[in-house]
């Protein structure tokens, strides 16, 4: 056993983690080529319970900020849009706002409304995607399929307005590039009504369906004080009752003119997050209906010169996952001197680690999905049973099956598939980790 974990022990020594014995460490992550946000979590277990989580980030450092310094202002708009494949619009919006702060031009009112509509459509699409994933990881596939089908409604609207489902390319400095298509108003209002109906139905389902309640109630519980201390942003702050929403605290685009209510919950567990995001979805749908009906007339864009005046400016906005922050510095040239961006997943990581503590191995998928990260870290888990010296590997899918079988044993017997160790009980201090490619 010492031979097997010798390297691991040495690595832990170098990281100053000698207080944990190697038997209790389970690596979680980091790389899966198909997904975009690999993170590596080192989990310290006591039996099934997680007592400590040590993260390591930076596996997908792409050097966007440095690249931005050598590219013209307008090209950076499209580059920063590609920071994320889900909340793409809000990145270009925030970068655009930061650059607009350096210029003297006023953004047309119609453009502000169109920005609000697209940003809210994006929020609905992101929240629906998350609810579907939550269904998937808890073993509630029906919810996953239904929610992702309803998400197509939003994607179709986004495609009709912008010409693309994911990367909208709608933003320009001091305006938007495309106007709302004519005759879209009725279609949008009708579709939003459909989504509100569906969201109300899903709220009822997550409140009554046993699968959902069993897997989410009381999971990932955290206190408001902890969330505040760890600077949680977005839904991760609102689900414990903190009123943290940039749309309300520091309005941008047309959020001053479009009325909306901030949604908060008090329970502070994964189930509260589900209901919070579904409630936010309804609020967003109502905002879109209002904005479309009250869309002002006028120009949508002011063309500005390619040289941005010298100075520095920062901007922040509320992405579906939380607060996004951009800082730009210009020396009056064609390219920026410095661009800094901060994404919500980084801000929420300390809170997620706190949520993981005290949870079981089977709850990891639910808790980590709860903060809405990308899920590259799931695959590549190795287990070693020290007593019988048996090794096996679980993929993300198998870990999911294990989670389902732990909570619903009778169901998993019928559905059992792809288990390398079906029904394998992982009992106390039998886990240690095998070095594999780290």
């Amino acid at each position: 056993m010492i031979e097997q974990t010798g390297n691991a022990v040495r690595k832990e020594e170098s990281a100053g983690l000698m207080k944990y014995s190697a038997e209790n460490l389970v690596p979680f992550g980091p790389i899966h080529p198909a997904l975009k946000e690999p993170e590596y979590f080192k989990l310290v277990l006591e039996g099934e319970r997680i007592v400590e989580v040590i993260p390591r980030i930076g596996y997908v450092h792409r050097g966007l900020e440095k690249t931005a310094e050598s590219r013209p202002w307008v090209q950076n708009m499209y580059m920063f849009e590609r920071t994320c494949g889900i909340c793409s619009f809000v990145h270009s919006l925030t970068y655009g706002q930061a650059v607009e702060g350096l210029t003297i031009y006023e953004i047309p009112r119609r453009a502000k409304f169109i920005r609000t509509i697209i940003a809210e459509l994006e929020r609905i699409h992101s929240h629906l995607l998350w609810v579907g994933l939550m269904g998937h990881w808890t073993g509630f596939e029906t919810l996953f399929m239904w929610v992702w089908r309803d998400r197509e409604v939003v994607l179709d609207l986004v495609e009709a307005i912008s010409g693309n489902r994911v990367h909208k390319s709608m933003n320009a400095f001091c305006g938007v590039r495309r106007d709302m298509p004519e005759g879209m108003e009725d279609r949008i209002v009708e579709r939003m009504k459909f989504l509100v109906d569906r969201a109300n139905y899903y709220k009822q389902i997550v409140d009554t369906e046993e699968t959902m309640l069993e897997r989410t109630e009381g999971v990932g519980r955290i206190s408001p004080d902890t969330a505040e201390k760890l600077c949680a942003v977005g839904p991760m702050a609102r689900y414990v009752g903190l009123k943290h929403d940039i749309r309300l605290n520091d309005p941008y685009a047309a959020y001053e003119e479009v009325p909306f209510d901030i949604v908060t919950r008090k329970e502070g567990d994964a189930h509260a997050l589900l209901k919070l995001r579904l409630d936010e979805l309804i609020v967003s749908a109502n905002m879109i209906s209002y904005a479309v009906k009250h869309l002002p007339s006028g120009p949508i864009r002011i063309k500005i010169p390619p040289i941005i005046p010298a100075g520095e400016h920062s901007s922040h906005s509320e992405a579906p996952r939380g607060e996004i922050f951009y800082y730009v510095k210009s020396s009056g040239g064609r390219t920026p001197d410095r661009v800094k961006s901060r994404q919500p997943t980084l801000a929420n990581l300390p809170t997620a680690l706190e949520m993981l503590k005290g949870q079981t191995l089977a709850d990891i998928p639910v808790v980590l999905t709860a903060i809405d990260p990308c899920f590259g870290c799931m695959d590549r888990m190795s287990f070693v049973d020290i007593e019988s010296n048996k090794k096996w590997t679980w993929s993300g899918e198998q870990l999911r099956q294990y989670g389902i079988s732990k909570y619903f044993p009778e169901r998993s017997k019928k559905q059992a598939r792809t288990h390398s160790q079906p029904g394998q009980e992982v009992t106390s201090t039998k886990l240690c980790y095998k070095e594999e490619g780290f």
Partner: protein
Amino acid sequence: MPRRRAGAVIPEMFRQMLEKPSTQAYPYKQVKLPERFRGKLDIDPERCTGCAVCSLVCPASVITMVDTGTRIVGDRELKVRRPVFDLSTCIFCGECVDNCAFKALELTKQFEIATPNKSDLFMNKALSK
């Protein structure tokens, strides 16, 4: 608090069984694309003047300007340049189309551009003029 039960979705499941399928029979049936769909880039060589604005704004380095000869304006000899496109890196943002003052560029509705041969995505139509 509503009653907690398993199978709360079963009535809705039966209702949805009677509905039409949500998927489309692509590629056997053509998909309907929206009016503003952004697909493969195309150029009208007749309209292009070689001003190079498209190559300056392109964020994905798709467009390169190539010297195709010279022309005499008054008593000066000027270079004639035309764009060539490497569409394999195109991100379909449409910035070049927006910035083309002569309306030579457009994004077509063609989206089936996967190919085993990368040179298929190399467009030098503008050179032929």
